[in-house]
């Protein structure tokens, strides 16, 4: 873990951490380098049919976003953010929103995105599952326009899924940092990033629908729920409460965002990452400084 952090902050890896030495080393370190960082990855924000809440979430990293754009990623495409008309080649495409299949251009855009991006990330409920752009119920009645929108995974292969409505600034940040480590890191960092991203890649393979029912089918009715309460905390529309310790979902309120299932420790739980939580949280913290 020590070496992850060291290379990330550009310091020389050392045999062992000696607090005293680290301090003097920090003092001796020259002021922030002037030269542009050459080794950045390229990232684009591809805006399909979404409410821009996902983009706002990315921006809600505040200085973290500035840090990401300074040191780890060049934004090569993004509506209103980058003055680029056609989708260019890029390492990572952060796709927000579902695809309106009545709109020829949107369909072409998502296909182009797949061709031009090494890694396609579905950011948020709409890109991942259709969410509120489709007939999600969520207190609504069925409307004709609901039939026009497809999650991007119905049209192209998706590599990583970030569920939720809106997705959290912190998970988007973590995925950006891990994508950087995966593409530019040392062997050790690549291995860590691979392990971290694996369950989010598995979620992408799992399918393009989400619902409170995922908890019912794949957690509760599989005898796996232990009543932690994560699902209720994760739900953006408070569709989940707990009765006698177990989740009770108001499925008519559910907007099909996938946050509850993704957050549930019994949907996926990877010991090799979770057991290192302290080091990884410090690593991400360090990367944002």
């Amino acid at each position: 873990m020590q070496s992850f952090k060291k290379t990330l902050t550009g310091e020389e890896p050392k045999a062992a951490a000696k607090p005293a030495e680290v301090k003097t080393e920090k003092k001796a370190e020259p002021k922030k380098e002037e030269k542009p960082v050459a080794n950045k990855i390229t990232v684009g924000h591809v805006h399909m049919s979404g409410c821009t809440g996902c983009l706002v979430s990315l921006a809600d990293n505040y200085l973290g976003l500035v840090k990401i754009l300074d040191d780890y990623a060049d934004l090569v495409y993004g509506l209103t953010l980058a003055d680029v008309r056609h989708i260019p080649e890029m390492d990572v495409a952060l796709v927000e929103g579902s695809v309106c299949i009545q709109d020829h251009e949107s369909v072409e855009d998502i296909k182009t995105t797949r061709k031009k991006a090494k890694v396609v990330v579905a950011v948020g409920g709409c890109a991942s599952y259709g969410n509120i752009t489709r007939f999600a119920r969520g207190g609504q009645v069925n409307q004709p326009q609901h039939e026009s929108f497809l999650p991007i995974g119905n049209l192209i292969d998706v590599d990583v899924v970030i569920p939720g409505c809106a997705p959290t600034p912190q998970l988007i940040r973590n995925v950006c940092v891990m994508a950087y480590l995966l593409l530019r890191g040392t062997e050790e960092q690549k291995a860590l990033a691979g392990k971290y991203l694996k369950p989010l890649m598995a979620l992408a393979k799992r399918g393009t629908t989400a619902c409170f029912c995922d908890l019912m089918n794949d957690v509760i009715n599989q005898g796996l729920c232990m009543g932690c309460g994560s699902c209720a905390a994760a739900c953006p529309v408070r569709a989940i409460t707990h009765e006698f310790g177990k989740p009770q979902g108001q499925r008519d309120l559910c907007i099909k965002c996938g946050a509850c299932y993704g957050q549930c420790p019994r949907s996926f739980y990877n010991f090799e990452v979770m057991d290192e939580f302290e080091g990884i949280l410090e690593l991400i913290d360090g990367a944002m400084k």
Partner: protein
Amino acid sequence: MGTELGKYKVCVSARSTDKEIMWKAQDGGIVTSLFAFALEHGIIDGAIVAGPGARPWQPRPFIATTREELLSARGTKYNISPQVSWLKEATRSFGLDKVGIVGTPCQMQAVRKAQLYPVGMRDVPDKVALAIGIFCMENFPYKSIQMIVEDHAGTKLQATKKMEIGKGKFTVITERGKSIALPLKITHKYEQPGCHVCLDYVANLGDISTGSVGSPDGWSTVFIRTKKGEETWNKAIAAGCFETKPIEQVKPGLDLVSKLANEKISKNKKTVEERATFGVNKALRNPYL
């Protein structure tokens, strides 16, 4: 196995020096005293604890922001309290920047997943200031506790003063001082199924974790695991909150903790394995893949 106790910096046997807290604490009053100390010294702004619920011995997770509220949650309720359901609300509706939370090992896993993979846990990752894990062999639905106390122990829930699991027995102690000890063989079938795939006994992911096993009656075994945990613990010791003894000098000591941890983990690993070949070419889901 060698990993059954998780990572830790120090392990001690301890008990609170606070007479008022000890009056109704489950064991050494570690959880309540540590939160009370942390609250008083601004280490946390509040803590998610399991207070009294709607029915006798039914826990209700809530956010305690005063010493009185912390004290109202003393003692173990052996049925599910979805602690994590308040984790996001604590930071939003309650505006806490430094959240304390107590919970079972699975709930500590949930807290760390909320920090590393904050799918729906917006702004939570940086706000967990003190997570105290309590050891846990199994937990029960409310109905089970009702059956155990009313049918097997033959007493009323309202008349029950304390419940304890230890030394192979589920013990119900009534307000009038009667003690009914049931062999755990009887209570096993009432456990919640989700516990049977659980691979953590001593809350490996808490900042600090504690339980009765390993220490003499009225004392607790305490693992100090993370930097945050260590910092808070050292301050609490310096302030005279706890009496401690080296764990090597108490009976039955860590050997028993290890033994029980290994028993739980190997039994439940076997369950996870059996689920893989449960039907004919049909598996029950494995959350750890």
